[in-house]
């Protein structure tokens, strides 16, 4: 005899799920899908002397992809973001590992508070603070010249390196948190079993710990990529506009010319890059593991 009661319960569960997801669905439609559709439509329009003219023209796309210095903003953004993500992972992983396996639980909490400290400071303030450290008369140059290590101050501010430094400071801590959260979920019995079977410490790390912690790395790296590639403040303040990244190119179009069609093309391109990165990393993106 079929379990009718069980099926009824399942149906009720499904109905509840359907009902409960409606607000989120409506919210997404209004605040994401709707504006995205508007942005796609506007990207085919033209801005003519202060007015938006509704046309169906691919001229903005042709201009963006056919102009070297505009397309360069995209390659600059991808380069800066990739370097930031890689350096942040390389710094964050050992930090998270030590935190998860070498520090007592009591101290872990204290260190985790320090890890989130950068998030407590306003983004703009944090960027200007870095300028005080790396500027010509900043702390680093002051110490190095004072110790006689260098004669002339190092040029650190207003460079791509300064932008990456500002990003890495923030995202290393973010990645530390996601990787740490993943590492502490790995059952110690796996590592113990490997050791019992004769695996060395390095073999345990490379064959057990590292593969199992990939979801934490992937989630952190993906979040880092998404936030960094869309960031305007850090390259503007620390990079000094000595090169243009896509968010700065968007701002130039919006704030100076109110050219929303061209800004939309750039924004859509940026979103496509993120979609591609998501597609490449999606198999490792397991949010339940972080």
């Amino acid at each position, binding site marked *: 005899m079929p379990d009718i009661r069980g099926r009824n319960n399942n149906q009720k569960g499904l109905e509840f799920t359907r009902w409960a997801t409606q607000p989120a669905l409506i919210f997404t439609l209004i605040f994401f899908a709707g504006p995205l559709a508007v942005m796609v439509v506007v990207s085919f329009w033209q801005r*003519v*002397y*202060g*007015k938006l003219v509704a046309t169906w023209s691919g001229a903005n796309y042709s201009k963006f992809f056919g*102009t070297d*210095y*505009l397309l*360069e*903003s995209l390659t*600059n953004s991808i380069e800066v973001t990739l370097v930031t993500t890689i350096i942040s992972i390389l710094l964050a992983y050992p930090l998270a590992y030590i935190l998860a396996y070498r520090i007592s639980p009591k101290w872990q909490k204290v260190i985790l508070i320090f890890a989130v400290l950068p998030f407590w400071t306003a983004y703009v303030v944090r960027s*200007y603070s870095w*300028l*005080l450290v790396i*500027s*010509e*008369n*900043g702390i680093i140059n002051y110490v190095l010249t004072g110790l006689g290590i260098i004669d002339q101050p190092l*040029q650190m*501010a*207003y460079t791509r390196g300064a932008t990456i430094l500002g990003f890495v400071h923030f995202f290393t801590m973010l990645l530390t948190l996601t990787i740490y959260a993943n590492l502490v979920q790995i059952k110690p019995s796996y590592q113990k079993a490997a050791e019992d079977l004769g695996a060395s410490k390095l073999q345990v790390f490379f064959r057990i710990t590292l593969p199992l912690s990939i979801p934490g790395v992937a989630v952190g790296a993906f979040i880092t990529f998404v936030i960094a590639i869309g960031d305007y403040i850090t390259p*503007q*303040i620390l990079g*000094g*506009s*000595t*090169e*243009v990244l896509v968010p*700065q*190119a968007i701002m*130039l*179009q*919006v*704030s*100076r*010319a*109110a*050219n*929303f069609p061209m800004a939309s093309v750039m924004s859509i391109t940026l979103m496509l890059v993120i979609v591609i990165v998501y597609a490449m990393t999606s198999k490792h993106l397991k949010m339940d593991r972080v």
Partner: protein
Amino acid sequence: MKNLIKQSGSGLSRRKFLGYAAGISAMSALPARYSHAAKDLNVLVWCDHADELLLKPFEEAHGVKVNVKSYEGTGTALSILEQSAPGDWDVLVVDAPDTRVFADQGMLEPLDDSSLPLGDLFKPLTSAAFNYIDGVRYAVPEKFGYYGVAYNKEKVDEADMRSAQVMWNDKYKGRVAVYDYYFPAMQLIAISMGVAPENISMDDLPTIREKLLAMKPNVKLVGDVVGVQNALVNGDVDIVLNGAEFTVSNLMPSIPALDWAIFDEGGLMWIQGISVFKDSNNKDLAVDFLNHILSPQGQGTLATSECYWAMPASSQAVLNDDQRKILRWDEQAAFMERSVPSTISDPDIDAAMLDIWTEFLQS
């Protein structure tokens, strides 16, 4: 709140209470225009209009509240207005050359000359070009300044600062910041070439582009006012091109080494104009606000605002000797005589210049 819930059994049910609460929440989230008192004045202006010293006397004299929304960049103002309803805004402050953009879209109210204290304006500011569009006044000049050069006089030769050739002077390689505003920067280059800014044509742009790109080795950063100020104060740069009094004057009382000038070859003036919106529901009050801003006291306060200093449009502005010295009051006659307004009337040239600027930043 507790009492209200207790009463739910006798009249105010929990559902009703939640309904009222949601209603109150929704009302508090309504756009500001619905919550304003009838005598509020909503002004869309630059940051120099936000000082309490400037607004309080007007608010007290008229018993009103002035709601300030400050913005940067004409494009930003246009986008704010595109998202606003008619009547949301009463007063606009904008770069004088851009007044036409708003007037052509029917956003601005024609102003009556007799209702404004125009007699006190510096004479060069009274020319038709700064005051009328097709014979109609839509804005009044309220403050002005120059695009030139700001510098640390302890680090540079002041004589160099008076020549436009400083833009390419090898002595200052890597010691220059550029204020991030594309068309005055390129108009300054035009001045150095002997081309009057108002006569720049498409044919001039290739040479301007070449000279702009040739400037890059000297340039350490391109930034907004705060960015270039920060670099100058930190010692990262010694010169700010495309800047002048608006870049350093408010810092000069505490850092006397800073100064500014315009080039001997010619100066480039920026002028901000103040207008009334056509759809304003408080037009009389808005005109009163314009009169307050143009009064001697208002002009003095506006000229020395916390956000940035610049020359008042009125020759009767109340300023002390130190403030006049910082603003180079004594040199104004000569400065104005050899300066032209930074205007751009051809949208195609404007768009081409923005493209060249983006290329310059990227180079």
